[in-house]
């Protein structure tokens, strides 16, 4: 029982984190038609900036300033990089963001080195929130959940209730009309890109202590974020939300349920030779398979429901 509760909570943490990343990506994609490969790199930058800032201002200083810094970096990249590359076409844009991801990883290694950084949660939150049957749930993870939910509510409110939000919503589908109404659409694009990046950075700031702060963190999470996007349906925020939670829970449960094919086969009374060629299949365990589950889900969706769970028509 405690396994279910902890897996639900841990999966929620992962899922919300994934949504924080995939929502920014979806918003940017819907608006500009560009899938930003370097989005997860902003996540990484958030963690590293927070690590350095927290050295001078403590964790809370990092929490406030690191995402802002990442947002500025993102906006600048959009303004001087992406906007320039736009003229070479969609493929070039995507390749550019890929190159950016590569470059950012190298730059991070240049300034911070290759070793994992000792970026940890603040003492204030470093206690177990509750303990069930001997396992404790860290307060920091509860903090992560709260921050994620808080940010989403704020964003939703901003998008639906403020003037800026309405302009953004309009610019997503009808940029030309919005421009004709006198709004500075390029500025809106830059702003949205910046906010999306800041969101990714924020995810990095809060995830860094929990998931580790190292140069490979972008690529590790990045692929999964793209799976989320495709599974949820390109361009759909609701789809991204559902897919994020789905994948978060899928992975978490798989890791904690230590069953394997061997157990299943024993149940059926079948045994096998230890040196059999297909022994990998027979000994397959859920924790082993956990990393590839998102990708398997991707393939299934592509075969049976290619537009994604809640996909819109292709752009």
């Amino acid at each position, binding site marked *: 029982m405690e396994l279910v509760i902890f897996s639900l909570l841990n999966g929620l943490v992962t899922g919300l984190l994934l949504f924080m990343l995939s929502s920014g990506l979806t918003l940017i994609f819907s608006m500009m038609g560009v*899938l930003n490969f370097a989005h997860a790199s902003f996540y990484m930058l958030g963690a590293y900036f927070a690590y350095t800032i927290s050295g001078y201002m403590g964790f809370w200083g990092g929490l406030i300033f690191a995402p802002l810094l990442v947002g500025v970096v993102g906006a600048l990249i959009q303004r001087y*990089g992406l906007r*320039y*590359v736009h003229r*070479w076409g*969609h*493929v*070039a844009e*995507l*390749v*550019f963001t*890929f*190159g*950016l991801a*590569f*470059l950012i990883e*190298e*730059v991070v*290694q*240049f*300034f911070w*080195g290759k070793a994992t950084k000792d970026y940890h949660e603040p003492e204030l939150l470093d206690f177990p929130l509750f303990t069930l049957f001997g396992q404790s749930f860290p307060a920091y993870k509860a903090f992560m959940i709260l921050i994620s939910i808080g940010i989403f509510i704020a964003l939703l409110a901003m998008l639906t209730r403020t003037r800026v939000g309405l302009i953004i919503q309009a610019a997503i589908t009808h940029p030309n009309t919005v421009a004709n109404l006198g709004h500075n659409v390029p500025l809106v694009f830059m702003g949205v890109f910046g906010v999306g990046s800041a969101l990714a950075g924020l995810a990095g700031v809060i995830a860094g202590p929990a998931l580790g702060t190292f140069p490979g963190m972008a*690529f590790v999470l990045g*692929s999964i974020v*793209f*799976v989320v*996007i*495709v599974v949820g349906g*390109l361009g759909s925020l609701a789809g991204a939300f559902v897919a994020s939670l789905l994948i978060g829970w899928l992975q978490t449960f798989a890791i904690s349920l230590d069953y394997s094919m061997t157990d299943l086969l024993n149940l059926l009374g079948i045994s096998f030779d230890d040196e059999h*060629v*297909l*022994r*990998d*299949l027979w000994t*397959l365990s859920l924790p*082993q*398979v956990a*990393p*590839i589950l*998102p*990708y*398997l889900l*991707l*393939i299934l969706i*592509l*075969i049976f429901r*290619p537009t994604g769970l809640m996909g819109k028509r*292709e752009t």
Partner: protein
Amino acid sequence: MGISSKDSGPGGIRSALGPFGLWIAAALVLAVMPTIFSSPVSVTIMNQMGISIVFALSYNMLLGQGGMLSFGHAVYFGLGGFLSVHVMNYVEYDGWPIPLPILPFIGGLFGLVFAIIIGSFSTRRAGTVFAMISLGVGELIAACSIIFVVFFGGEEGVSGDRTMGPPVFGTEFLKEIEVYYLTAVIVFVAAALMYLFSLTPAGRMANAVRDNPERAEFVGYSQRQVRFISFCASGFFAGIAGGLFAINYEILTEENLNLVTSGWVLLMAYIGGIGFFIGPIIGAILLTLLQTVLSNHTELWLLYVGLLFVLTVMFVPSGLTGLIMMHEPALRTGRLPNLARPYLVAGIPLLVALAGGVAVLEMLHHFNNAPVGDTVAHVFGMAVDTHNPANWAVAIAVTVFGAYATVRATPQVREAWSEANDFSGKAEDR
């Protein structure tokens, strides 16, 4: 670009040697190279280049010819390689009578099989979705390789011995140079086949679908089918490259399947120039050199490669080959020498600025990472004390001065360029 060019199919300079001339020249170069660069290190590097050439050309069948951006192409390369090593082991331990030169072909077939399976659902969509699917599939297979230890060998990968097969014309491929000639032949044949593919109905329609998928449908071609065929063909040749890798290195690991390798082949093709058949070849040669030679001189070589890549995508999207080909009109009309002086006036300061920039970065890197007490960085073969502010001042000054001089010279270059490409008036120049 290209005002008029006969047979402008996959691109290429119309040389006086005629259509076969370029290929004969290439064959000669391949045959003669080891006599010029005969050290074992050189031969190893050339072998690596050969493998990369086939890999990058296979990738360009997707990207340059078909307009399909893939982030998971290493899968077919790696799978072809893994199977090849296993066959090598069967040859060694179970006495299978398979001569080594057949191996790349077997690797190619394995790559083809997987391309057919994966292509069946991944080529339905093009563009961004295709790219994401390729990424997901690539990561899936790379992750699977840790799980399925029997085929992929787990953390240590799978290794074999190429010298255990039946002798071919007397050689057992003990020597690197023998491997070179085998590689060279296979590279030549594979490249020729890929070039010929682009001249077939399937290849021409791949270009058509890339440029205007709607129009291609309305002349009777299913864009999905066309993409699928290109996909399968490129998987086949990637598998061949994998087989060559197996022969050369006698070991395959998870690294050969993952995003790093997939990204690397994208870099090779793009920097070389995806719009030309020869582009990936040039990219493969250049990047192999950077990977093998440059990495010996600086720890920052990947950073430089990354910068090169991003700058290429931003400012020279047609790649190195594109940059060279842009000079073709000027070459044909004899105006090329007019560009020499402006290029020098801008180029030399640019090189100076780059050198200065590199010095600053190298010194910074050394300063940050060297153990306490070690204050001497090696930059361009010189020993530089990184704790001496004077050295920093010099490096920064050189960079700034070079950059300033370059910017000052740019209008000259621009003017000379537009003059060299002005075909509006004087017909007598042609």
